[in-house]
């Protein structure tokens, strides 16, 4: 009896320990997790960081890292190897989980650490050829000893940090998800660069466009997609003369129509992923030297996508923001030049309908003969389950995906091969290596010539007084509109026949107007002799920037800060006066008229405390839906929706536009009726969802600016960040997207930088420096960047590496 009792007790104890040591569902192993010595409590920063000396044996000479009061590291090394080794080490020290999880995602390995829930995402990543592209990039790096040596130095530094860690020192996310850091490799840097390409150039409308062309016809496509709004002000000024002839490409006689209307998944990039940059020449500034500004708009997360750093070694002294996992500074400046990037929305992702000989998929028809496919076997490890092997077939275009029709789900599936810039071999790190050391315009152009993807508008300014902008990347040389619809996989005329030579990439240096700028709008005017794509951001941000820069004289860094924070809505200014003219006021109640008055008196600035931006936004989107939904939802096929700026223009100049009528009613609706109905719907929806006249109506709350944790762990993000802006404003903050780094650089004998990002240096949610800059970012403040010419005497703490 007694033995049974004690035995039971022991059993119970063992069971309790095992249960508390095991991750169950998403609940971390509780005993391990709550242990004050090694669980999450060990990640709470209880003392300010102190100076330390490290004997790493990996570096060749001594390295010093000085942290300034914002905990930005300033690395002073004696050679390139040590510099990148240390960058890897200290980046891992602050951001290890982020580095790892981003590459797990980019390589389709999330299920390995999280479990079967992430399997679908991994399969898609693999079938898009993400690991295939990274393998090719690694191969290219291996053939380029210089690129390989810096990526390897960086990896060695990361690994030195990882191997110094004991389990209690793992970042908290490892304890929540219950896994361990693994060795960092140059391949992971390649994965990370491909992840950027997916975020910024993983976009196409091919199937939607084929469907739209078939369903609504050529006139509709001509009206909505071929014509740019009149207010469009292209990145390269329309006055630019092109003194070269385009390399000719052969075009098919008629456009291919895919056999059925299918969906290839959503690749639409949410608006808000876009950016602004500009540079003004010394003729327009107070100092007489150029000023450069850049604010890349990305999905905002904690930790931030960016990590600020200064890199100093013989031949290099540069400051700016870096990506976790990539050696060098991506956006920044040195003593001679400054540079920044915005995305180019060129079409570099095309789908081809494939004709297989039989169900074995071993051969496909191309150029009049059967050609063999190749295969890649993707091994996907799944936490708690058996490893899955997925065979992906490749044509010469790329990986093949099988799709069932949404319209006729019973019909045979179709096969589509993907040709995508992310599959190109690339050594993009060389570009940043070059930019970080550039002294003048020629160095900048040389550095850009190594760049493949994601294509960026590289803005530039130098101490020599030059300003420039290159629309830069590797662009396929296409016939007009090639690849905007689904392509014929059997016809070589649909293949990417070649590339636009780098020197033909759109660019401008020292234009007469005294400034260069980009905000993701169309790169060029129609006079440019190559076709690059037809789906750019609306004109609004770009035009606002150019309007302002044209007017401004004696510009200071502070003026540029103000412009980055500009909340003006060109969209509202264009369409709202019309909507107010169209609305029928007779049927509106007292309180409805009151709300309408708010909108009438609005100055078109998307300021946080105002109610009008929220009301206008809902009103416009209801109107947009009321005009288009009846036609667009009359088919199951997914279609390409017109851009906001183009529809605005059509309404303004053609109030009798046929889509205004609701095809589901017998009556013929007028624009006045739709505008009035939309306004009524706006107020009743907002009242129901937000309550009448509550603070939730304020734009700063309505816009839902949440900065979520990278892995969406509740409590680790910042919710309801009250701030102005809008997707069509220069300050493009909205709904968790927006300026992920604001930087202004004033060139001159003493280059001065200002910057801020919505995060903090540390990736540790238990550190005060995890989100220490969010408040400054929210209120439109900037920090002066501590660009050091020599080792500082004043610093918060330092790490000496021997």
């Amino acid at each position, binding site marked *: 009896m007694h033995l049974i009792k*004690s035995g039971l*007790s022991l059993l119970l*104890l063992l069971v309790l320990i095992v249960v508390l040591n095991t991750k169950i569902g998403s609940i971390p192993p509780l005993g391990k997790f709550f242990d004050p010595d090694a669980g999450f409590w060990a990640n*709470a920063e209880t003392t300010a960081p102190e100076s330390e000396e490290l004997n790493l044996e990996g570096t060749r000479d001594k390295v010093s890292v000085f942290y300034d009061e914002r905990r930005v590291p300033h690395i002073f090394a004696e050679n390139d190897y040590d510099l990148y080794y240390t960058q890897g080490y200290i980046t891992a020290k602050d951001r290890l989980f982020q580095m790892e999880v981003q590459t797990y995602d980019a390589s389709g390995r999330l299920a390995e650490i999280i479990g079967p829930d992430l399997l679908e995402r991994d399969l898609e990543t693999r079938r898009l050829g993400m690991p295939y592209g990274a393998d090719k990039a690694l191969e290219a790096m291996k053939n380029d000893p210089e690129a390989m040596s810096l990526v390897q130095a960086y990896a060695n530094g990361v690994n030195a940090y990882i191997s110094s860690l004991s389990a209690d020192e793992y970042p908290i996310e490892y304890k929540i998800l219950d896994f361990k850091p693994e060795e960092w490799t140059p391949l992971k840097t390649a994965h990370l660069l491909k992840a950027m390409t997916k975020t910024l150039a993983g976009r196409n409308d091919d199937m939607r466009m084929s469907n739209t062309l078939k369903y609504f016809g050529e006139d509709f496509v001509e009206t909505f997609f071929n014509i740019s709004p009149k207010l469009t002000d292209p990145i390269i000024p329309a006055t630019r003369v092109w003194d070269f002839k385009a390399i000719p490409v052969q075009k098919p006689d008629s456009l291919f129509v895919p056999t059925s209307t299918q969906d290839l998944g959503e690749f639409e990039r949410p608006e808000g992923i876009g950016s602004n940059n500009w540079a003004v020449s010394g003729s327009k500034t107070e100092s007489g030297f150029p000023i450069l500004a850049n604010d890349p708009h990305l999905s905002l997360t904690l930790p931030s996508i960016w990590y600020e750093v200064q890199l100093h070694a013989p031949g290099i002294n540069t400051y700016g923001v870096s990506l976790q996992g990539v050696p060098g500074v991506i956006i920044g400046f040195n003593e001679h030049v400054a540079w920044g990037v915005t995305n180019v929305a060129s079409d570099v992702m095309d789908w081809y309908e494939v004709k297989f000989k039989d169900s074995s998929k071993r051969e496909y028809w191309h150029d009049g003969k059967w050609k063999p496919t190749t295969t890649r076997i993707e091994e996907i490890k799944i936490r708690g389950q058996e490893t899955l092997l997925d065979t992906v077939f490749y044509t010469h275009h790329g990986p093949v995906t099988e799709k069932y029709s949404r319209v006729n789900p019973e019909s045979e599936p179709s096969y589509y091969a993907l040709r995508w810039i992310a599959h190109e071999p690339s050594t993009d790190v060389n570009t940043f290596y070059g930019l970080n050391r550039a002294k003048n315009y020629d160095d900048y152009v040389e550095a850009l010539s190594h760049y493949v993807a994601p294509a960026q508008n590289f803005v530039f300014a130098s101490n020599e007084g030059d300003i420039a902008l290159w629309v830069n990347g590797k662009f396929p040389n296409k016939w007009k509109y090639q690849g905007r619809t689904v392509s014929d996989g059997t016809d070589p005329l649909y293949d990417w026949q070649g590339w636009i030579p780098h020197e033909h990439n759109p660019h401008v240096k020292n234009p007469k107007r005294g400034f260069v700028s980009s905000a993701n709008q169309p790169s060029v005017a129609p006079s440019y002799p190559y076709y690059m794509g037809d789906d750019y951001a609306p004109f609004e941000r770009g035009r606002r920037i150019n309007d302002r820069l044209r007017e401004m004289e004696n510009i200071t860094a502070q003026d540029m800060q103000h412009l980055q924070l500009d909340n003006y809505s060109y969209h509202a200014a264009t369409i709202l006066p019309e909507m107010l003219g169209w609305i029928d006021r007779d049927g509106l109640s007292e309180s409805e008229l009151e709300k309408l008055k708010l909108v009438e008196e609005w100055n078109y600035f998307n300021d946080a405390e105002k109610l009008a931006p929220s009301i206008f936004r809902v009103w416009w989107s209801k109107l947009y839906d009321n005009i288009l939904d009846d036609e667009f939802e009359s088919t199951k096929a997914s279609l390409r929706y017109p851009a906001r700026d183009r529809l605005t223009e059509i309404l303004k100049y053609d109030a009798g536009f046929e889509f205004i009528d609701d095809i589901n009613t017998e009556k013929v609706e007028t624009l006045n009726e739709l505008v009035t109905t939309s306004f009524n719907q706006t107020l009743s929806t907002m009242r129901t969802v937000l309550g009448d006249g509550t603070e939730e109506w304020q734009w700063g709350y309505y816009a839902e600016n949440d900065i979520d944790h990278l892995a969406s762990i*509740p409590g680790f993000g910042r919710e309801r960040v009250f701030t102005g802006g809008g997707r069509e404003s220069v300050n493009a903050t909205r709904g968790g997207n927006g300026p992920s780094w604001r930087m202004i650089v004033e060139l001159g004998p003493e280059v001065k930088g200002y910057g801020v990002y919505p995060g903090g240096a540390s990736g540790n*949610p238990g550190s*005060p420096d995890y989100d220490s800059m969010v408040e400054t970012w929210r209120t439109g403040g900037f920090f002066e960047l501590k660009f050091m010419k020599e080792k500082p005497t004043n610093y918060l703490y330092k790490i000496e590496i021997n």
Partner: protein
Amino acid sequence: MLLTALIILFSFLLNFFLPWWSIALPGLVFGYFFKPKAFAAFGWGFLALFLLWGAQALYIHFANDGILSTRIAEMLQVGSPLLVVLITGVIGGLVSALATLTGALFANKPQRRRSFS
């Protein structure tokens, strides 16, 4: 009381070097040697680790200005960071309680009475 004090001391030392479940060892050992009654064993064992882990957590909570415990409270949806401290104590306490009980039961002299208070 001595039993509790010894468990606290040895758990603290072991937990420094060994994984978290090492906190069960002092309970097993001292429960065996002190041979408390079942109810007392459970109670004193619980108290020991509840105090130890609770105090450690509370110290970190204050030294960290509650930054992390507030985030964890939100993650676990328990409302207050002090509840996170309390949960820490309870988890440690439960393991130690069961361990001390097991030790005491194995001592095989359940009838003998001894006071520890």
